[in-house]
């Protein structure tokens, strides 16, 4: 699968929180989906603990708490394919890009700051 990865666009959503423990990740993904539905070009950066959003094999939480794995599958339906994942965070958790639920481009320090500079609006979650 080809990974397109423009470092410019209307909105960059930075996802720094892991799934299940809080609603940050879900609320950040919701903001990305809404912007895409409005026709904006949206990029996602999974940074820090947020890279665990891309872990395979996620399930529902206690009491059937939904989690976010299913929402990730909707990204391509909304034409959000500019996905970036922080290299140092992957290394921190011993993850490799090929183990992820979705293809994402590896982002090092320089490419992260280029992502921020290249988008009109940056929201952190």
């Amino acid at each position: 699968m080809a990974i397109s990865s423009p470092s410019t666009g209307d909105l960059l959503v930075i996802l720094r929180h892991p799934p299940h423990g809080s609603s940050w990740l879900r609320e950040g993904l919701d903001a990305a989906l809404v912007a895409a539905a409005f026709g904006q070009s949206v990029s996602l950066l999974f940074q820090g603990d947020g890279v665990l959003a891309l872990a395979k094999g996620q399930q529902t939480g206690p009491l059937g708490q939904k989690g976010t794995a299913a929402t990730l599958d909707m990204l391509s339906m909304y034409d959000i394919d500019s996905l970036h994942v922080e290299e140092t965070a992957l290394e921190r958790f011993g993850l490799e890009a090929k183990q992820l639920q979705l293809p994402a481009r590896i982002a090092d320090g320089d490419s992260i700051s280029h992502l921020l500079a290249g988008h009109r609006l940056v929201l952190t979650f």
Partner: protein
Amino acid sequence: MRYALLVEGAPYSSQASHSALRFATTLVARGHQLVSVFFYHDGVYNAARLAAPPQDEPHLYDAWRSLHAEHGTELQVCIAAALRRGLLDEREAERHGKSGHSVEPPFELTGLGQLIDLGQGVDRLVTFAP
């Protein structure tokens, strides 16, 4: 054993309420008694009677009510933490001259002293924080 839980996280914002409810049903299933759940800090938002979560997500408010109905667990809400956050029962609403209320039984507004009483009166107090 006699247990009490202290819940300090807002529902749907942190996993605290989910974890506490899961722990609650498990400890009751193991034959323990869950005397009370005390809500403090942002945990008081669990008592918001108008909560309307999406149908495909857990209904935490109803889950607390079920816990009370099935096991007699008291649902105690710190009154000082609640008032400033807009959680008033009918009596407090009247006292503050507000029309309408946001908390109703089985949730009850109570003083922080109840938490201290619980902490000393039960065998185990377990805290679920955001």
